[in-house]
């Protein structure tokens, strides 16, 4: 029986810039930042109120895992904004939107009333995008 998700990946183009985005702009908590040889580190963060979910800010570099062609394809797709990385929850979407905008986060959609609730869309520093929704938009309807 699977009990929970412990670790997940977000593929990023540059770890220094991803650190700045996720920790300084989004306010995620740094869990680990351990050097792993030249140009690579084990860099993980958690959403502020979810300390038991570790998100690995996984760099796309030519390595055992990513042969050159794969790495180039992934970087191109991420930059193009192909990948949605999930829904992030907030208490107040308007305050969160104003704060992230003030910090320079690029929004593809400001808070917008959809049939399923209020939602905004923003991109990370690599090109991955997230949906931002308040708790009430994510609660089961009916």
């Amino acid at each position, binding site marked *: 029986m699977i009990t929970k998700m412990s670790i997940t990946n977000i593929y990023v183009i540059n770890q220094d810039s991803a650190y700045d985005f996720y920790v300084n702009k989004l306010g995620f908590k740094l869990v680990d930042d*351990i050097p*792993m040889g030249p140009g690579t580190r*084990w860099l993980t963060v958690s959403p502020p109120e979810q300390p038991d979910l570790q998100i690995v800010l996984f760099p796309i570099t030519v390595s055992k895992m990513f042969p050159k062609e794969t790495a180039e394809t992934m970087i191109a797709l991420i930059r193009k904004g192909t990948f949605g990385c999930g829904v992030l929850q907030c208490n107040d979407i308007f*305050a969160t939107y*104003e704060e992230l905008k003030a910090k320079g986060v690029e929004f593809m959609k400001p*808070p*917008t*009333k959809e049939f399923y609730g209020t939602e905004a869309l923003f991109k990370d520093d690599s090109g991955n995008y997230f949906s931002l929704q308040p708790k009430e938009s994510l609660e089961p309807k009916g």
Partner: protein
Amino acid sequence: MISMAEHYPKVYLYRRIVQAKLFMDNHYADKIDLDNISDEAYFSKFHFIRLFKTIYGKTPHQYLTAVRIEKSQQLLRTGKPVSEVCFLVGFDSLTSFSGLFKRTVGISPSTYFANQQRIKSQIIKTPFAFIPGCYAHQNGWLENSNFEEVNL
């Protein structure tokens, strides 16, 4: 689909509260007079505190204290001594800092500092003990390491 970008309720109110929050995030090390913050936000103090609490779940004072304690943990992790950290995050008394830290974090700042130093030296000695083996293996990080030292 109705865009609410510039039309959601009380947009200017939101901006002022957010500016006050960002002010505290950026100036936690300074003496912050919360009365001045509500003045800058053009609110009565009572109205400001109420709105701030509705949005962030804490009064401005509680929020500022939480930011200071959070920042102090970050600084202690970097190896700065407790006596220095206390003033770097805007407290002017070591006793009140230590008391608040213990109440929030559950241990004293000096115990926290010692624990973090211990973890740091363990990470340097056996980094792979802190990384899930599956990731280290997949990345080929284990190939050049000494397995004998790893205590998983």
